[in-house]
């Protein structure tokens, strides 16, 4: 079983991506949609608000209105676009968010601790959180009957409300729940770069016990979360994680052949 996460950043050719992934049989896909969500929010006069946590992580402030736009892009536009493309390739895709059948359930954070204008502050009204349980029975039910799950945030809180979650960690938790051998995380960067400005500074291999070290040494922002996801996947029994580029031809095959940062 192969679990693939494809990001939602600008410039990803989803046709090339789907063509490649559709040649594999036994997989589950998790996708993002951040670029499209930023565009829609701006077009509707509600530009996205990003906040920085005390440890320096940036995340999208997800109030109720943002959650509506979030569902429109992630569960609406992106999910059904990918399901449609897979159906055209003969893959019987079924698109689900974490809300559906409580596929991804967890805890909504009461408040965020952020840094803004140099001050540490409490920020409420944010609907984000962390997944604590994957409904793996629903995934098996679909897989065993010939369907291919195409999954997207949001997740669902124990109280039944939609919560924004980190897509890379969601993919890692799905990979662990399914006992997948391989987790591939594709985005608009070729992998872990020693120097974010220099694409040639790609770290090609990390052993599982160097993940923590790399996180502190090189990784910034989003890459830190990908490494956390990779660490969690490996700790949960996944044998191999590859952080690769989603752009260009056959991105999945290239990652499987070790192009990007391989973590074992």
């Amino acid at each position: 079983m192969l679990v693939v996460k494809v990001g939602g950043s600008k410039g990803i050719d989803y046709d090339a991506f789907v063509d490649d992934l559709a040649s594999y049989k036994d997989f589950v896909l998790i996708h993002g949609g951040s670029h499209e969500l930023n565009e829609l929010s701006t077009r509707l006069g509600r530009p996205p608000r990003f906040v920085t946590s005390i440890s320096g992580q940036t995340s999208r402030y997800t109030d109720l209105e943002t959650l509506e736009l979030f569902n429109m892009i992630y569960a609406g536009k992106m999910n059904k676009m990918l399901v449609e493309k897979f159906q055209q390739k003969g893959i019987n895709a079924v698109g689900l968010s974490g809300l559906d059948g409580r596929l991804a359930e967890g805890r909504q954070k009461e408040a965020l601790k952020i840094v803004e204008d140099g001050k540490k502050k409490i920020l409420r009204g944010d609907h984000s959180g962390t997944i604590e349980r994957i409904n793996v029975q629903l995934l098996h039910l679909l897989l065993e009957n010939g369907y291919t799950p195409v999954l997207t945030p949001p997740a669902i809180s124990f109280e039944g409300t939609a919560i924004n979650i980190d897509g890379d960690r969601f993919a890692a938790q799905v990979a662990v729940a399914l006992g997948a051998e391989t987790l591939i995380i594709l985005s608009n960067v070729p992998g872990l770069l020693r120097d974010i400005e220099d694409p040639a500074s790609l770290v090609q291999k990390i052993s599982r016990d160097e993940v923590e070290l790399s996180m502190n040494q090189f990784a910034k922002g989003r890459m830190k979360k990908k490494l956390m996801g990779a660490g969690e996947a490996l700790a949960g029994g996944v044998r191999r994680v590859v952080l690769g580029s989603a752009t260009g031809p056959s991105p999945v095959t290239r990652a499987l052949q070790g192009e990007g940062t391989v973590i074992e």
Partner: protein
Amino acid sequence: MSAECPECGSKVELPEDAVENEILECALCGVELEVISLSPPTLELAPEEKEDWGE
């Protein structure tokens, strides 16, 4: 501008440019506090939210 620490009762000095929802630490007992209002200056225990993910 100062207010009482709800944990240990000591007086906590608020910075001149204090804003609502700002996080302060009680100098005496070290607990994390949140500025609930500026007039009158009022402090409460900040929610316990361990730092982790959330896209």
